[in-house]
């Protein structure tokens, strides 16, 4: 009796979130799947998928999405790991960490517009270059500017999990490694890095998956020179009004994300939980 009542009470706590989940996550997903699998008059069809997989354009877009997401992730990782490592050695690490997190509280669009101001032909960077007699360069609307801004925006999401995993490592292990004859680099390579892999994986997830569907930056900074799946979905829903094809690409994007999550999941922690 008691336990049943307790269960009921627990279910009650779930109601607000459950309703939210149902209305704004599950229902849209079902709609998306339904749209992608039906014709205008509601019959089942795989035609949308046939169009997607039959067209070189969409496959190229998919490849572009994955490729640019990969590049963004790589750039953020190469910048973030040393940063997180350094941060972990500092005395007032929480303060410095806060400074790194701070930009994430500002709206994404605002930050993107700020970069337009910085990188445009009459922008700050070109003004600065002008001081040295360099004629204004076309910095915006290039692959490079797209990668720069995307990496800038994603860096905190990479630093944070890596920092956390580094902070969790017992400092005695690095001591033990040095004691056994390993120098600083060997210790980093053989002890610290393997032990921070869970944070690296979490960071890759947090950066790679959102990067697959970036679209505002591709337009505002990349000038639509890089067309990713995110851009394609936006085009289909807002411009060409082809919701069915848009939904299909959406479903494919979600599948790609799930695959990424499976590939980067933390096996070590799972197995230790099983043992515990």
């Amino acid at each position, binding site marked *: 009796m008691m336990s049943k009542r307790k269960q009921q009470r627990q279910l009650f706590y779930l109601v607000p979130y459950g309703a939210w989940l149902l209305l704004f996550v599950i229902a849209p997903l079902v709609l998306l799947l339904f749209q992608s699998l039906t014709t205008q008059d509601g019959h089942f069809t795989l035609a949308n998928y046939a169009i997607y997989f039959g067209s070189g354009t969409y496959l190229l877009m998919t490849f572009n999405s994955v490729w640019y997401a990969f590049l963004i992730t790589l750039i953020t990782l190469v910048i973030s790991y040393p940063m997180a490592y350094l941060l972990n050695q500092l005395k007032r690490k929480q303060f410095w960490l806060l400074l790194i997190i701070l930009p994430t509280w500002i709206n994404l669009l605002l930050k993107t517009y700020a970069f337009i101001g910085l990188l445009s032909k009459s922008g700050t960077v070109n003004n600065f270059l002008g001081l040295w007699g360099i004629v204004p360069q076309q910095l915006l609307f290039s692959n490079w500017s797209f990668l720069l801004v995307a990496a800038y925006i994603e860096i905190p999401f990479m630093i944070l999990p890596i920092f956390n995993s580094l902070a969790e490592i*017992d400092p005695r292990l690095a*001591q033990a*490694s040095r*004691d*056994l*004859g*390993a120098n600083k680099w060997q210790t980093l390579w053989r*002890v610290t890095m393997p032990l921070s892999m869970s944070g690296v994986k979490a960071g890759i997830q947090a950066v790679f998956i959102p990067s697959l569907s970036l679209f505002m930056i591709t337009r505002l900074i990349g000038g639509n020179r890089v067309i990713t799946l995110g851009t394609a979905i936006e085009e289909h829903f807002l411009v060409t009004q082809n919701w069915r094809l848009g939904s299909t690409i959406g479903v494919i994007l979600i599948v790609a994300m799930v695959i990424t999550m499976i590939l980067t999941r933390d096996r070590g922690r799972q197995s230790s939980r099983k043992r515990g």
Partner: protein
Amino acid sequence: MNLRAFLDTIVLLTKSEGWELTNTSTPIIEFKNVGLSYDDNEVLKNIDLALEAGKFYTLLGPSGSGKTTILNLISGQLTPTRGDILFEGDVINDVPVEKRHMNTVFQDYGLFPNMNVFDNVAFGPSIKGMSKADIKNKVTEMLELVKLTAYADREINELSGGQKQRVAIARALANDPEVLLLDEPLSALDYKLRKEMQYELREIQQRLGITFVFVTHDQEEALAMSDWIYVMNDGVVQQNGSPEDIYDEPINHFVADFIGESNILDGVMKADYLVHFTGKDFENVDAGMRPNEQVEVVLRPEDLDLTSVENGKLVVTIDDQSFRGDYYEITAIDDDGNEWQVQATNKSTIGERVGLTFDPEDIHIMRFNESEDDFDARLESYEDDSDDVKA
């Protein structure tokens, strides 16, 4: 009696020979006036040590006494702010941790959780660039030494505390260190396992013949394992000596109190071989002090015997007793109100008045603020006297 005296002479002879060896050969590790301060906080004050190769040393003291600091200075995790640390006669103050010929067994083992037992032990040899076959031989040899041969493929989180301890020892020894540093390695183990590991560590040390520097706060452990003990407190070496010396002749109140159980009383040395405490005069074996010098008197609970009131040197009332397996621990109070700890073989009755007796050589005298050198010199002077008497 004659046989005993003969044996004593032999012991003395071997001891003195050992001393000569010390003086001629270079110590493997030497501290010359080493100090360490953080800002204004002096953690270690003017430490002098000389450790001979192949012996089992223990740094014994309560937490915060500086014993682990000394270990970290030897291993290179810390650098002294004053003085010199020497390894086989060369100053090594600035030699980095990884270039020193010593390895550490850490308090919480410090095993790499991302590697299995084999890879943990193989870490040192593989950093050295040994061949795969050599590494395998070395690891097998080490795991045999700590009796974990069957566990090579185990993950670290699958091991018990005692097994982790053994892996940590094997890993530290796999580098063939000349000195093994052990930072309270047994403190996390339960009583029985700790006893077992004490015995095994001692055996490993003797088998390998390398120098062990063992840090502990457990005086029993220190007495059982060591060739030589450094008793630390407040960043200062209070006393160093063989376990027997330190137990039998504590230099001051701290050492007497920290090592074993002690009854410590205020007394006055009326003359050589005559001490006054609890309102009475007692014959003893100490000499060389100023007439009527204020001293502290130490009597070990196991040196005291309960007897009839007439036969007792003091009369006490039994206040409390607890059974300790091989003896009864008795608290008794004398007529001056002093509390006495006594280890007795027979059960007593609480409230009973009994006599307390002890031999002259059971009375240990401690002078206030006597330096270790003065203490040693004084002890030597009248030990020579008593030997003469015996002869």
